[in-house]
């Protein structure tokens, strides 16, 4: 199968082996995990197996498989057209050297990692998909699409940078253009019934994640931050109906755990909230450090986190124009730092801090992510104003700063403990 997909099989095998080892060390070594995590562990095992076969089967049926990098790409439309959306890999140091053969070094590690997976032919998702849908949320991405397009068809959806009336109109036009594009690939016109069905599916998936997030806010928390992050990461790969069912089953188990007072990891562990950039699979660096130091992460204010599932949309619009308008408004509520001004995000961070019962916030940014790195100033000011213990970490995927980060994380926990 891998040869047919034109992969660099030797390197791919090495990467898979490494991922397996890291996963075992980071995840399977945790004690007292919920039994429901078995499904998600298996998803990681099947990440480079069963799930790829499912995608190939979907393609056989003529359903388009679309790769994305961003929570702004409207999944509802892809689902309505019978297509499959997959979030592309971008959280590993392993593919960065492949990217640096072509791209400049001083750009975002997530962009480099994702690009490197294609350039090195070591990500089967990239090899399976029909096309990539990029967006214009940052400069590194939007210019990389031009280079990526030479290797895989890459379309770009323009995301406005402000939230004025003209931006809304432009965005609606972009959403419509996206729909036309997806329809042209699937060879079928999307009906209002298709859209309602897809909206229901996505709402149910987002509701399941909301439920999980609410349950983990319980003190003491019934599930580790690492495990929730894993589920939030898998949300971008898995079949949405099955995924929502599994998340809900896990939530049933967590409710029982809460009733039985089963906690992870220890009852007096410091509770930390993470805010900032997405942690793409398999970026578990910060969670591993924080939970390794005896604390627990109880919230991710991030695209791979609440930013993906905090907003739902109306499922019952009468006509296509209305549902597309609703969809545009729903996606416009996403508070990415690419927007200016972006006061909604400051309020959202404070709201999630209160809801999660955290004792401190770690703002996490990737190196060279200018918008999050600069917006961090306003998040810090808000935390100072509210008296919230706060720390800022800027890092990438390499292990070179782990020693210093460990010291900083432990010192932050000591500070909270005093």
């Amino acid at each position: 199968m891998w040869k047919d997909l034109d992969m660099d099989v030797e390197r791919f095998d090495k990467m898979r082996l490494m991922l397996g080892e890291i996963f075992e060390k980071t995840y399977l070594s945790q004690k007292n995990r919920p039994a429901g995590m078995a499904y998600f562990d298996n998803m990681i095992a099947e990440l480079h197996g069963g799930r790829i076969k499912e995608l190939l089967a979907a393609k056989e049926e003529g359903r388009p498989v679309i790769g994305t990098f961003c929570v702004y790409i409207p999944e509802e439309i892809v689902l309505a057209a019978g297509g499959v959306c997959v979030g592309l890999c971008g959280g590993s140091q392993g593919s960065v050297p492949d990217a640096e053969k072509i791209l400049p070094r001083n750009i975002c590690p997530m962009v480099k990692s994702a690009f490197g997976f294609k350039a090195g032919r070591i990500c089967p998702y990239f090899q399976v998909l029909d096309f990539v849908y990029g967006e214009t949320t940052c400069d590194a991405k939007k210019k990389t699409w031009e280079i990526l397009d030479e290797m895989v068809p890459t379309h770009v959806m323009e995301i406005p940078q402000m939230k004025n009336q003209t931006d809304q109109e432009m965005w609606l036009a972009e959403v419509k253009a996206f729909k036309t594009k997806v329809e042209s690939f699937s060879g079928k016109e999307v009906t209002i019934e298709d859209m309602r069905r897809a909206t229901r599916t996505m709402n149910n998936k987002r509701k399941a994640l909301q439920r999980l997030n609410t349950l983990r806010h319980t003190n003491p928390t019934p599930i580790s931050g690492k495990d929730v992050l894993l589920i939030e990461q898998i949300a971008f790969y898995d079949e949405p109906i099955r995924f929502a069912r599994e998340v809900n089953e896990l939530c049933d188990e967590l409710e029982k755990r809460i009733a039985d007072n089963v906690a992870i990891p220890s009852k007096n562990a410091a509770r930390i909230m993470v805010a900032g950039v997405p942690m793409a699979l398999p970026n578990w660096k910060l969670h591993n450090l924080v939970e390794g130091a005896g604390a627990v992460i109880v919230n991710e204010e991030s695209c791979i986190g609440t930013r993906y599932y905090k907003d739902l949309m109306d499922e019952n619009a009468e006509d296509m124009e209305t549902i597309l308008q609703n969809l545009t408004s729903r996606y416009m509520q996403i508070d990415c730092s690419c927007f200016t001004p972006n006061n909604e995000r400051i309020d959202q961070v404070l709201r999630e801090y209160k809801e999660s019962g955290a004792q401190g916030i770690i703002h996490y940014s990737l190196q060279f992510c200018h918008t999050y790195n600069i917006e961090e100033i306003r998040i810090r000011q808000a935390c100072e104003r509210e008296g919230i213990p706060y720390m800022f970490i800027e890092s990438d995927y390499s292990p070179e700063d782990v020693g210093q980060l460990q010291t900083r994380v432990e010192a932050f926990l000591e500070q909270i403990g005093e």
Partner: protein
Amino acid sequence: MYVGVDLGSRTIKVAAWQDGRMVDHKLQESGFEPHEQAREMIKAYSPRHVIATGYGRHLAHEHFADGVITEIKAHAMGIHTMLPEATTVVDIGGQDSKVIALNVKGQVTNFQMNDKCAAGTGRFLEIMATSLAYPLGDFGPAALASEQEIQINSMCTVFAESEVISMKNRGIPRQHIARAVHSSVADRIIAMLGRIGFGELIAFSGGVANNPCIVQMVRMRLENVQVVVPENPSLIGALGAAIEAARRGGQV
């Protein structure tokens, strides 16, 4: 006896604490198996409780120490004991530079620490001293003796070294370049202080506090602020750990 051991990136420091005061201390360059070396260094004390800090703290904990605290807390505790009035600590060691804000009880309220690179650390000064062929102990005094103000623009160790080499090759006397190197480190400390904020008494700890030029330059850049270097600034982390050992061991 209560012992604090600071396994730093360049040296291992030990402080022994009894009846509310430091009764002994040691400092050695760290070798290949720092935990073995540290264990050897504290053997004679037969300590009741040992707290480790510094880069090797977890390794020491695995092998012999009873507990760990971070360097940040250790320096805060050490300084608070020696200079209770200080509400700001600048600690520059071999691999890290830190600015720590304390409350009146000596607890950490905020801190800044470099993470991705060696800029502005003891290691940076060492590399620059080597590049200019100074023994480390002469580097600060030589820079202090120069009166020429020139500027190094890069704070990256690698790029700063190229800048230093190009200055050498333009015929600039080495003591002037040495001064520029020190200036760049002092500017970085001031920038970190600016981000955290600081009180009227700043304590300067860590190995780089032994460098008279850095201390002088930091003083010159601040108005109405006292910058104090405690006796044996390299030992502050070990001292803080020893005090924590006494606290946890039941003897404050």
